[in-house]
């Protein structure tokens, strides 16, 4: 599942739709999740009042000491030599050692002492520290239990100066990045989260299987329906879904509708507007999807199937031939992918061939939101680690070891370090050019759990388009009311 993301997600317990993440769901992560369940259960049942009381007892301010260095072109944030920096990093599918790698570069350059601590429960573990006014200097606010951005917005540093600074090679950082990477980290016009990992949302397939059968990835929903019939003739299904990941089809549907109807469609949904889900492009996509459900092109029983087991029916058993997901899918299914699968992505299909945005348009978003709390002891130190992460050395290290692109352009070689999925992500990004969009309402307001319920019903044929529209609108309206 996707785990995490910026505002999102996770695992098993987890939440959300979001992006990015790759994480989550490998087997080892499942263990963590189970543990966090228990912890969550305890927290919910017992510890809430207690933690709360302890936290509120200690709500003293700490102020920003420590940014004592002098700012200069070489030292854009004024980091003080020999100071110490504390980073708390979500330990999900990407691990945390890539941050240690960047922190070591900082330590070498500034003789600082960095502590990089892994954490799986960001919200629960850092809540008392936020309330108490002594948060760490850098946080990867990701995973199922990430802190909702609307709750901490006021206590975060803006990061515009990070992107305006030069990287360690002397180039201005903002010139080295993919377009629109600030968007997912901008809330109420404040850019507070540096999302590090570039996640491409696509429809994934096996290039070898498609070649063998003479299939091509569908560019419109009509083509998808035709492909479903062809797959059926071979005893295969078009799609598969798992109960914790039913909303991957929400992602696909919304991306498709946005490409069909343009960015206005996205803005209405993102701003939780009334009747946003009744917009024609969205309805067209829902109807197309319902046709596919009704035709029986989904593997039945998804609402009761654990999502990685469902995904294995696509990547390993090849019972289904297409799967919509983020770029983390390759990493997630590494151990359950058929030999010679050649995992490749194609952009979401459009409704008609003259859609507002071209077929190549892509939902691609930076995920893994890094934040710097204003009350941290070494704000400059937190930003300095970010700067190191955005420099060539650390960013290349990430792509090479995690097989995922960062927001820094042009660091993935033509062979994609041996990964067909990484190559196709880079290709899709290049083909999309500036037609890259992203939406965040689901993770921003923590709606994935509610959305999963109706999407499971819809994909299993228990709810029709009218019920789906009504429920999606209700979830959106409720979130708008509690804003």
């Amino acid at each position, binding site marked *: 599942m996707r785990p995490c993301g910026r505002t999102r997600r996770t*695992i098993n317990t987890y*939440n959300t739709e979001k992006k990015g993440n790759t994480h989550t769901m490998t087997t080892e992560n499942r263990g963590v999740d189970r543990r966090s369940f228990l912890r969550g259960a305890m927290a919910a049942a017992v510890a809430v009042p207690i933690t709360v009381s302890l936290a509120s007892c200690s709500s003293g301010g700490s102020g920003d000491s420590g940014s004592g260095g002098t700012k200069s072109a070489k030292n854009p944030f004024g980091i003080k030599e020999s100071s110490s920096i504390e980073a708390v990093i979500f330990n999900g599918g990407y691990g945390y050692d890539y941050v240690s790698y960047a922190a070591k570069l900082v330590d070498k350059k500034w003789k600082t002492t960095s502590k990089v601590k892994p954490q799986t429960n960001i*919200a629960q573990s850092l809540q008392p520290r*936020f309330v108490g006014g002594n948060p760490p200097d850098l946080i990867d606010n990701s995973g199922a239990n990430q*802190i909702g951005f*609307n709750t901490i917005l006021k206590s975060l540093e803006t990061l515009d100066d990070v992107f305006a600074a030069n990287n360690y090679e002397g180039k201005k950082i903002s010139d080295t990045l993919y377009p629109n990477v600030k968007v997912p980290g901008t809330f109420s016009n404040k850019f507070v989260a540096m999302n590090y990992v570039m996640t491409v949302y696509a429809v994934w397939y096996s290039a070898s299987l498609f070649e063998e059968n003479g299939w091509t990835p569908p560019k419109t929903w009509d083509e998808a329906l035709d492909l479903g019939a062809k797959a059926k003739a071979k005893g295969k299904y078009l799609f598969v879904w798992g109960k914790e990941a039913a909303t991957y089809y929400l992602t696909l549907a919304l991306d498709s509708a946005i490409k069909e109807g343009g960015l206005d469609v996205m803005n209405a949904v993102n701003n939780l507007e009334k009747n946003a889900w009744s917009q024609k492009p969205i309805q067209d996509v829902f109807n197309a999807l319902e046709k596919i459900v009704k035709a029986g092109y989904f593997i039945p029983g998804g609402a*009761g199937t654990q999502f990685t087991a469902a995904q294995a029916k696509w990547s390993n058993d090849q019972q289904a031939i297409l799967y919509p997901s983020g770029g983390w899918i390759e990493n997630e299914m590494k151990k359950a992918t058929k030999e010679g699968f050649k995992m490749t992505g194609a952009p979401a299909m459009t409704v008609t061939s003259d859609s507002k945005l071209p077929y190549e348009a892509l939902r691609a978003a930076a995920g893994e939101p890094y934040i710097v709390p204003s009350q941290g002891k070494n704000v400059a130190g937190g930003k300095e680690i970010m700067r190191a992460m955005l420099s060539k050395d650390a960013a290349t290290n990430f792509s090479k070891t995690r097989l995922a692109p960062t927001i820094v352009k042009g660091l993935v070689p033509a062979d994609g370090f041996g990964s067909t999925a990484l190559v196709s992500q880079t290709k899709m990004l290049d083909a999309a050019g500036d037609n890259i969009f992203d939406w965040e309402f689901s993770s921003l307001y923590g709606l994935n759990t509610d959305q999963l319920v109706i999407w499971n*019903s819809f994909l299993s044929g228990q709810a029709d388009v009218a019920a789906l529209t009504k429920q999606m609108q209700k979830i959106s309206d409720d979130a708008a009311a509690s804003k």
Partner: protein
Amino acid sequence: MAVFLILPLAIFLLFVIWPFVQAIYYSLTDWGGFSPTMNFIGFDNFVKLANDDTFMQAVFNCILLGIFVPLITIVVALIIASVVTVAGPSKGTIRGVKGSGFYRTVSFFPYCIPAIVIGLIWSQVYDPSAGLLNGFLTSIGLHKFTNFAWLGEVATAMPASMFVIIWGFIGFYTVLFVAAIKSIPAEIYEAVRLDGATRFRTAWSITLPSIRDNIQTAYIYLGIAALDSFVYMSALFPNAGGPANTTLVISQDLFNTAFRKGQFGYATAMGVVLAAITLLFAAIVFGIVRLTKGREEGRS
């Protein structure tokens, strides 16, 4: 002397009552969870809860769990307990059926497994294509169960989850009831046997009234556990409330609201409602037990 009284009282006040008071206070605020300040908003959270369809669905689900899980668990546990202690051969001493020690031990096994593991095991058993249950059903020719999602259909999700919870609890309550039944003098059973009572009549008129207190306690414990059910439901339905929220429980809704949506004040209000429902449940069980006891005493 005073120390022995005051110290425990102080600990109780500090670690039990004070958090309760705080929780009630937070339920009256709009606290988001990460700020030192919050606004007092009176009973707005509770009004909002009453109009929150998802929450009301969760309350309804919890009530279903609170009724059926204890009832079925106790009935089944009582039957097993009677069979392995007093419902054996009608000749010779009062004893259980042959091999009762074995049954007693086996019935306790599920209780040795942590709840989270039980949930994970059963979510695999219920898997539509690779699960044991559908594997068995399709192998005996029931092909309509191919890819049937036990946990994904509105009609079956709740019963299937209840089965899992009950499966996990039965062993412990069997052992509890066995101990209780053993404390009833065997002469009473011999006497009713001489009077020609059937096994059912014996269970109804002798066993049941004799261990009434144990059953009451068991009912309350089970009810509280069933009203919570967080671990089982989270394992069976990670991330969501089951098909059309038919298995969503209050504690899951609370968890989502607090930790995913960042509405701690609202979530705390849910916790307060859950506590009220639990207290009410206990009061109802006490009331029923007292009523029935009064009637029987009046009759005798």
